[in-house]
Structures are given as C-alpha cells and as structure tokens.
C-alpha cells in the first residue's frame, strides 16, 4: 500500500513542480492557487505513504536512504505549506517544490523494501530525524539565500523585471535565511551527538573518521561559523546568502557521498 501512495505522491509533486516552474517563468499570476492545491494533495498522500509504511514495517520508517530522502522531501513540503499559509510568499514553491520532487525521485530510484530492523538500530530514528530536520532547515536557508542573490542582482543591475516583481523583499529573505540557520544548527548538533552516541553503541567508537563523518563535522563547523559571523560581525545580507548557498552544496555533497560509498549503516 505504501508504495502505491508513494507513487501517487510522486505524480502530484511532479505536477506541482511543473505548475510552480510555470509560475517562475510565466505571467499567469493566479497559478500559485492550483499549484498550492496540487502540492497539498501530494503532501496528503505523502503522509499516508509514510504512515502506512510505518504500520506495515512496524517501526518508524527512517532506516534506509530511500526512507530518509522521502522524509526529507515530506518535511520540505510541509514547511512550504505552512509558510505559504502564513506569509503568502507564492514564489517559495517554485524553489522548494522542485527540490522536494528531486529528493523524492532520488528516493524512488533507491531500494524501496522495508528492512527488518535489527534490535541495534531501534533508536537510530532519533539521529536520523534530527539530522534530516537540520538539513531541511539548511535547504530552506539555501533557497532563501538563492532568492536573495537573485533579487540582489536585480536591484543592483537595475533590471527590474519578471522575477523582481515575484520575489519578496531583501530583508524578509535575509531574516528567513538567519532563522533557518539558527533553527537548523541546534538540530544538526543534536543529530551529530546522537549519531556519535549511536556509533559508540553500535561500533564501540564515537568517531572513526570516515568520509561522511568528516563531511558532517565539516558542515557543522561551517554553519557554526556562519551563525557566529551573523551574530557578531554582521555577516548578513549578501554574505550570509552566499555562505548558505555554498554551505548547502557541501551538505548535498556529503549526502551524495553517503549514498555512493555505502559505508554508512544506512545505505
């Protein structure tokens, strides 16, 4: 059942992504409405897919890369729906939904079978949830940063057309960026700590210097600097936007590394 729901979700996210990309390019202003509804329906099926998978497997479905990517996509869409309802920033969907779709279609390409959970992995979901939610926050910061850089460029070049009208104000984007990072950073910190504890428990050592652990620590350190820079020396606005865009590239790189190398107990 969960696979059927998953595929229906994929279909709706594809449709939503298409509509939101049309919004990005086109002049039809009301298109966010159908796009929003389609994303909402997709989210509904996505939730069903996750819940039914949990019931079928008898454990929280966060034990494989497929499940992690699916959850990541679900949390992104949830974030978008909440922000859209609260702030009415329609253009956000044009950035978030494609990202959620790409993540979900990557999940679709990975082995989908529900694993039998070894007792040792029973509490691993805490580590995964925290790390993934942290990653969602960084993804949001990335999107805010990207939108900031586009809008910044338009204002600087005085080319005030098309996207300029659709993108929100610079300081709103900067604030979203800052909030996302100060929200995501503690989550990532806790994710890393629980991960280390789990590694100690499972393998007998907190840290064994493999690629993804180094990647995770590097990411953590990077965002720590970004966060401190914002609070202390005013690394905000354009600089913060640049840093978060670059930082998220690092996050994606780490994730892809985890998938490809398959060393993580996950893959």
């Amino acid at each position: 059942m969960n696979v059927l729901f998953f595929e229906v979700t994929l279909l709706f996210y594809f449709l939503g992504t298409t509509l939101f990309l049309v919004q990005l390019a086109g002049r039809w202003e009301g298109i966010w409405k159908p796009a929003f509804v389609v994303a909402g329906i997709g989210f509904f099926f996505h939730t069903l897919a996750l819940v039914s998978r949990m019931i079928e497997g008898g454990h929280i479905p966060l034990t494989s890369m497929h499940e992690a990517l699916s959850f990541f996509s679900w949390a992104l869409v949830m974030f978008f729906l909440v922000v859209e309802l609260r702030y009415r920033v329609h253009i956000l969907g044009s950035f978030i939904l494609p990202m959620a779709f790409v993540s979900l279609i990557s999940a679709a390409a990975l082995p989908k079978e529900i694993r039998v959970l070894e007792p040792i992995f029973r509490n691993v979901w805490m580590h995964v949830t925290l790390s993934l939610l942290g990653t969602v926050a960084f993804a949001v910061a990335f999107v805010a940063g990207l939108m900031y850089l586009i809008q910044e460029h338009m204002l600087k070049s005085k080319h005030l057309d098309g996207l300029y009208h659709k993108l929100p104000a610079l300081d709103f984007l900067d604030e979203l960026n800052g909030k996302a990072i100060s929200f995501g950073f503690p989550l990532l910190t806790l994710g890393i700590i629980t991960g280390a504890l789990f590694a100690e428990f499972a393998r007998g050592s907190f840290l064994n210097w493999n690629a993804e652990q180094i990647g995770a620590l590097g990411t953590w350190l990077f965002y720590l600097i970004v966060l401190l820079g914002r609070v202390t020396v005013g690394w905000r606005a354009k600089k913060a936007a640049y840093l978060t865009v670059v930082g998220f590239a690092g996050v994606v790189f780490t994730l892809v590394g985890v998938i490809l190398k398959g060393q993580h107990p996950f893959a």
Partner: protein
Amino acid sequence: MNIIAVGLNHRTAPVELRERFAVPESHLPEALARLKRWPGIDEGVILSTCNRVELYAVVKETAHGVESLRDYLVTLASDIGWERLEPHLYCLDGAEAIRHLFRVAASLDSMVVGEPQILGQVKEAYDVALTHKATGVVLNKVMKKAISVGKRVRTETGIAEHAVSVSYAAVELAKKIFQNLSEKTVLLVGIGEMGKLAARHLIGAGVRHVMIANRNYERAIDVATQFNALPVPFSQVHHEMAGADIVLCATAADAYVIGPDDVHRALRSRKNRPMFLIDISDPRNIDPAVGSLDNAYLYNIDDLQSQVVTNLGQRGLEALKAEDIVRVEVPPVVVWLKSLEVVPTIVALRRKADSILREEIDRILAKLGPLSARQRELVEELATAITNKLLHGPLIALKAEADSSNGALFAETAQRLFDLEKELECIAKAQSSEQERG
C-alpha cells in the same frame, strides 16, 4: 436631442491656455447655473482639472448646440478670443462624446495613463452639477455609467498597477528591499519639493520615523514639524546615516554630499543591514561609487525615471484591455439615448392626434345638433377608428426603430411630418419639472 462634448486637454492645448479656461471649484456653481441658462443647452456638466477643461451638454439640435457650447466656453476666459482657442478645441457628439467621456473616466485619456485621480475628478464634477441641478435624465445616466466604467477598468485591468511617478517608483523599490516600511527610518537630506514629495509618499506607504537635515537648520525644524519628523543638523548627516534605512537626497548642492566612505562607515555600524539611497537631485548629490558597495542600493533620478518608462509600457498593454471595456460599454448607452428621442415623439404624436380628435368631435357635434347617446357614441367611434388606423403604421415603425441607429432619423421625420414641435416642448417641460420635484 443629442449629447455633445467640447473641450481642450493636455494633448490639444498648452498649459498656459488650459489654465485660462479652468473653472476653479468656487466658481463652479455660478458657471453651471449660467451653462444651464445658455441658449440651446438642456443639461450640462463642467469637468475642469489641470489637464483638461471639458463641457458636456445635452442639446436639442447638434450643430447649433455645439456652436452654442463653444460660445459659452469662450466666455470662461474673458481675454482669449475665439481665434486663439479654435485650433486647440475638440467637439464631439453622440457616441463619440460618450466614448470620450468613458475614456476620460477610465484614465485612458490622461497624461499618465492609469493615474487614479481622474475618476474622482469626474465623480466630483458630476456631483457638483447634480447638486446645482444642471444635469437631467440624459447626463445623470451617462455620467453614472462613465463612473462605473472607470471603476470597472480599475478593477479588471492592471492599468494602475505599477508605479508611474518617480516618487512612487521609489516607494515600490523600498518595498522590495524592506518588507515592513513601518519599522524603517528615512533620512531626508535637503528639503526641495521633490524630496518632500518622495518623503510624503514613503510616509503614506507606512514609514513612521523620519529625520530631516538641511543646511538651514531653522527650515529643517520647520519642515520637520510638518512631517512630524526629527530635525537633524546638516553636519550630523554622515553620523545619522547609520540609523537610516532609506536616505533620500535632494539638495541644491553642486557637489557630492555623500560619498562611498560615508556609506561604508554607516553600513559597518549597521552591521550590513541594507541601505536604500535615493538621489533625486540634479546635479547628483550621492557619489555613484556608492552603488557598488555591497548592501547599498543607490538609485538616482534617471534610474527611477527609466523604471517609470518601463511601467508605462506595461500600462500600455493593460490600456488595450481597458479600451476593449470602453468599446463594449458605449453602444448600450447610445441605444438608450436613441430610444429617448423616439419615446417622446411617440407620446407627442399620440397627444397631437388626441387633441385634434377631441377638437373635431366637439366641433362636429355642435353642428349636428341634438343626437341620441348611441349616435354620439358612433360619431366618436368613427373618428377614433380613423385616427388609430392612420397612426398605426407610423407608431409601429417608430417603436421598431427606437433601438436602431435610425431611431433619431425616424423620430425627426415623424416630428417634421406631423409638426410635433409644440407637443414635444410640452413634454420636455413636464419632464424637467418632474425632475426638479424628484
């Protein structure tokens, strides 16, 4: 009967000429009363704004009415003769006059297409004419329709969407840098008219904190009280800039007042919170090098102007939609106007026939001497049958043509053939006295 329009606007006449004919608000009642009494004019409305002076009137006979209305217009400016006015004048009648009025109300005829004031001015002109009883059945209907067309165009097209004045373009830009203007501070440097206008627009858009600096500190204090703002000594400008999110520079200085170093320092103490610098002075007061600093957004008068031009182009597209709306709204009014001409003709014809009938019956009965009730009845029946049968054809034809473009022609022909002038006058009098009571 027809509706006519005579006037001059920003396209046909220079401002020096327009302002001579402008009717100030205080003179409007007197001018309307005179217009109402003017020969050949049944109803009238005077629309006088800084971009146009137009007279709308309902007249019995188009050619004479136009001439008469032009004569009236000439009297509005005592020292300008007909010869000087004539080349700048336009005269419209019927559907053309109605279409023109609709386009004016829809802001399609404005200097800045889509500007919002004109609809209010049309409404005002109509209200004053209505209160002073200068309008009647025709102009009441047509003016109300014009106002509703104006509203429809505003709501259904994007004609008024983008900023088309420099001040408003500055506000629109500020909103793309700062989400919430009510928390932002504006520093106005120099108190020229342009600067004050832009500041007023920003306050209108929600800005609550304003600082005003001027070389003459006394005058800064003066203006600051007007704006409920904080006066700042000119020497403090560079220092206060750190607290200003928007810097509006409009001094008469012929050198740069603000340079990149000043802005750089301000940005540092603001921890890189963005600054929006608007230079609306000529020559420029802010060094263009400021524009290349990160987080400083510098726009000068030319940048804003070119934004206005782009938006005007945008409005051009929306104006096409608005023209379509006007196009479909005019014909029903024209049809209604035509039917107005036909209906009184039908009534007059009936009335004339009835009065002849009455007269002739009385005359013949007096000659015939005593008759039985039955005989009298038969005589009356005979006369009535003859008139009814004779009138049947013309009445049917008139009713059938009432809505068509031939309505007026048929009505006029019937009036001539049956000599209905007296009756029509009676009807018109009755109508106008009814309206006065109403």
